[in-house]
């Protein structure tokens, strides 16, 4: 691909918020794997005469999300009707927000190889999900269990200039909503979905391109990446032919990222937005907003920065730990109340040996992850060797046996008593006179003596200490 173009991308991300009941009725919002049309009522089934009543919890979660994305909050917010037709949209309109979204003018920072970049968040608003159409053998079946489930829409500015930035942003958003407890954002379950707005412009141009291509209903970050690659190629070729790509909405053909034209600008849907008359204006007090603000936990970027600054944890290690909530919670729980040197050392073990055990071995129910900290501490204290520690960890992880017991049973505790070490070293010197002579002339040959001593000690000693002792003795 030529270097003369640059990508301009804006994203709309939908996140299903985790509430007990649906957005506008009291139906159970947990629709996953439920028999079709069992979580429905007159409201979410769109029966005549039914009225929507907004879910307070959902509005609070939307405010929380907006605040976490550094948005200003509209203290007077309202719902609007977005009118369009589709069989799985039971009312013939979706209740959304138009000109007074809950949050606006925010941003979030993302990190790529190029460094840290601020991505503008245009708006964060609350809406409801549609039902589900299941196309099967030329038939379409409708399931309204998902109809009315709360959705938060996060609209970004057209600030992305690469696929990597888009990926970093999507992952960051997923982390944030998970940290907030707003959503599980499980893409397999459709809890997080994407809409791409993409165009290309000549490098150096400051203005937005005259066209943009919209791709809706992208269900995962990996497909999103493929769509970007595909669109980049497609739009580039059109531009190279001296033409401008059509402003249109394109749809996914399958999961390969290839798209096909669905709607051009001329027959774009006219949503005929107007204020939802069934729901009065919502006034959000500063007090309420502040209260919600106070419930926002430390967010991923702050946490990462703190790990690096406070404990000296390596950047990549920190990134791996903060990646998801369960991971950092486990890490923080096993490193609570220990000194920063130990925290830093544990972090390496945690994302190294411990992660690979978690990924490949079966964890015994009895195994407690705080033993890792004890183990690492013993390594630092030179009570056990690093390589023994790995074996101990693995055995403990598999069997659930307490690490202390394994050390005792196997006699793996290091010899740190100097008089014992001196006795061993003296014995090595007397039984290897020739080698001692060599080593006095050539220090490289001393390593043979160290090896002999370590063998005698069955490796249960700090090699550095033994080496120092031998070198000191050679100088005598």
């Amino acid at each position, binding site marked *: 691909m030529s270097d003369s173009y640059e990508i301009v991308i804006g994203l709309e991300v939908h996140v299903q918020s985790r509430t007990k009941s649906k957005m506008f009725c009291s139906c159970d919002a947990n629709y996953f794997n439920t028999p079709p049309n069992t979580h429905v009522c007159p409201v979410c089934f769109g029966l005549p005469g039914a*009225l929507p009543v907004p879910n307070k919890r959902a509005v609070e979660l939307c405010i929380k999300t907006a605040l976490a994305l550094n948005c200003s909050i509209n203290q007077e917010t309202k719902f609007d009707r977005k009118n369009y037709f589709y069989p799985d949209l039971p009312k013939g309109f979706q209740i959304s927000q138009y000109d007074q979204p809950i949050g606006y003018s925010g941003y979030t920072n993302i990190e790529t190889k190029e460094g840290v970049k601020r991505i503008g968040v245009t708006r964060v608003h609350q809406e409801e999900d549609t039902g589900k159409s299941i196309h099967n053998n030329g038939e379409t079946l409708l399931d309204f269990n998902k109809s009315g489930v709360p959705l938060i829409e996060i609209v970004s500015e057209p600030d992305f200039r690469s696929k990597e930035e888009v990926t970093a942003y999507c992952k960051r958003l997923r982390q944030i909503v998970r940290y907030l407890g707003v959503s599980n954002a499980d893409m397999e379950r459709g809890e997080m979905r994407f809409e791409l707005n993409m165009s290309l412009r000549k490098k150096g141009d400051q203005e937005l391109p005259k066209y943009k291509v919209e791709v809706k209903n992208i269900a995962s970050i990996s497909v999103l990446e493929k769509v970007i690659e595909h669109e980049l190629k497609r739009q580039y070729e059109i531009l190279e032919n001296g033409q401008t790509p059509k402003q249109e909405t394109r749809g996914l053909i399958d999961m390969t990222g290839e798209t096909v034209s669905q709607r051009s600008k001329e027959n774009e849907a006219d949503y005929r937005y107007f204020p939802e008359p069934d729901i009065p204006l919502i006034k959000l007090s500063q007090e309420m907003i502040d209260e919600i603000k106070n419930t926002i936990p430390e967010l991923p970027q702050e946490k990462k920065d703190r790990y690096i600054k406070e404990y000296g944890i390596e950047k990549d290690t920190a990134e791996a730990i903060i990646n998801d909530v369960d991971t950092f919670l486990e890490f923080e729980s096993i490193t609570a109340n220990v000194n920063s040197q130990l925290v830093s050392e544990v972090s390496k073990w945690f994302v190294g040996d411990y992660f690979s055990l978690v990924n490949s071995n079966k964890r015994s129910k009895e195994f407690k992850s705080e033993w890792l900290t004890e183990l690492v501490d013993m390594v630092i204290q030179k009570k056990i060797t690093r390589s023994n520690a790995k074996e101990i960890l693995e055995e403990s992880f598999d069997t659930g046996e307490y690490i202390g017991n394994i050390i005792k049973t196997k006699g793996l505790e290091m010899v740190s008593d100097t008089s014992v070490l001196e006795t061993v070293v003296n014995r090595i010197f007397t039984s290897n006179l020739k080698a001692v002579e060599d080593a006095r002339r050539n220090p490289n040959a001393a390593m043979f003596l160290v090896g002999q001593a370590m063998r005698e000690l069955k490796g249960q000693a700090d090699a550095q200490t033994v080496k120092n002792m031998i070198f000191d003795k050679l100088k005598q």
Partner: protein
Amino acid sequence: MKRLYELTVKEALELLESKEITARELVQSCLDRIEEMEPTIHAFLLIIKEEALKAADQIDMKRTKGEPLGKLAGIPYSLKDVYSTKGYTTTAGSKMLEGYIAPYNATVVEKLAKEDAILIGKTNCDPFGFGSSTENSAYGVTRNPLDTDRVPGGSSGGSGAAVAYGGGLFSIGEDTGGSIRCPAAFCGIVGLKPTYGRVSRYGSIAYASSYDTVGPMTKDIYDNALILSVIAGKDTRDATTSAEKVKPYHQALDLSLKGRKVGVVKEYLGDGVDEEVKKAINQAIEVYKSLGCEIVEVSLPYTEYAIAAYYVIGISEASSNLARMDGIRFGHEANVDDWKDKIIKTRGEGFGPEEKRRVMVGTYALSTGYADKYYHKAQQVRAILKDDILKAFKKVDILLTPTMPVLPPKIGENTDDPLKMWLMDAFTVTINPVGVPALALPAGNTKDGLSVGMQLIGPHFKEDTLYNFAYLYEKSIKDTLN
């Protein structure tokens, strides 16, 4: 002695409580009356006989045993066919909902059931409330019991006619731009359009959500106030209902009106108002003077624009409200295979001309490029109108206007001229965009035995004031009317 179906709710409750009559006798009397009148009037789309009589028997039994009973125990009533009723059809007067049985009850139905009122039928109406004559109903026109050549008004025309002839002692109508008040005026009964948010709309099939109100249609003021006190109040299923306290509206009806101010709107007595209507209103003005009221002339200069604003917003909302009628989950379903064609045909067949007209014009008014010119402009007019009327209430306690500028038209007289029909609602449609309450009651009779309605308009949540003024008027003219 009156026949039982001629009784007011108050009279019937007294006779039931003193056990002079039974609920079965009362219900049977109304059912007999319905059977007698329906071939001519056609007020009902559904008559509930067996279940009503069974309910009456249960109430009689409870009464005999001395068990506690609701405030309206044994009183037969009808519902405009826009209220969802579990187990009974709800058609909204449209073919689109032919045979539709809702799986739930509207809040107003639940509230009345809780007070042991007995539902005996569902009444005819213009489809989705679209009309002022009931002539748009997909199920045939209802005739005015006062003159069967004339319309009963609309859209709650079936309710108006039913109450007027004794097919139930009261009815619940629905008013979006006069749909309770117009038939009340034409049929010579009392109808209240309550303050928006006073009565829950849950389960009421929507016309224009920001205008729709649920109100009682009764034979007299006392009954109306009594029914409102039962159906009013906050509902967790309707976010637009108010927490404003529900008053015992029927208990403060005859407070003196001495020194109170009645505003007479000069624009509402001008050209185009029938002479007989003017005469009755002038007579009403005299009555209020004699009750010690001060008459103040008030100007509402924006009325001219109010009709246009009313219709633009009303049909915009209606176009969206009717979008759910797709034949997929309920209602009429065209017999076509392809799903897109099926939905198009479903609507083509299910909607009548008035529904199509309003959906199309409403869709247009909300469209990109036109919304600013129509929908948003109309909302600006609405704000001015609200200001206009609320300003008037700084000077007067209530406003007095004719309910309808004309006497009930002959059946078929206006059906070719939808615009004339729309303009007929000038005095009622101005009220709904503002949300204030308005009470329609008989002002007097014409020489031909038709009734002229007058409308009392009050500030938000001042239904008690309206009832007070109306009750004393009713009392003063009772003798002249009988």
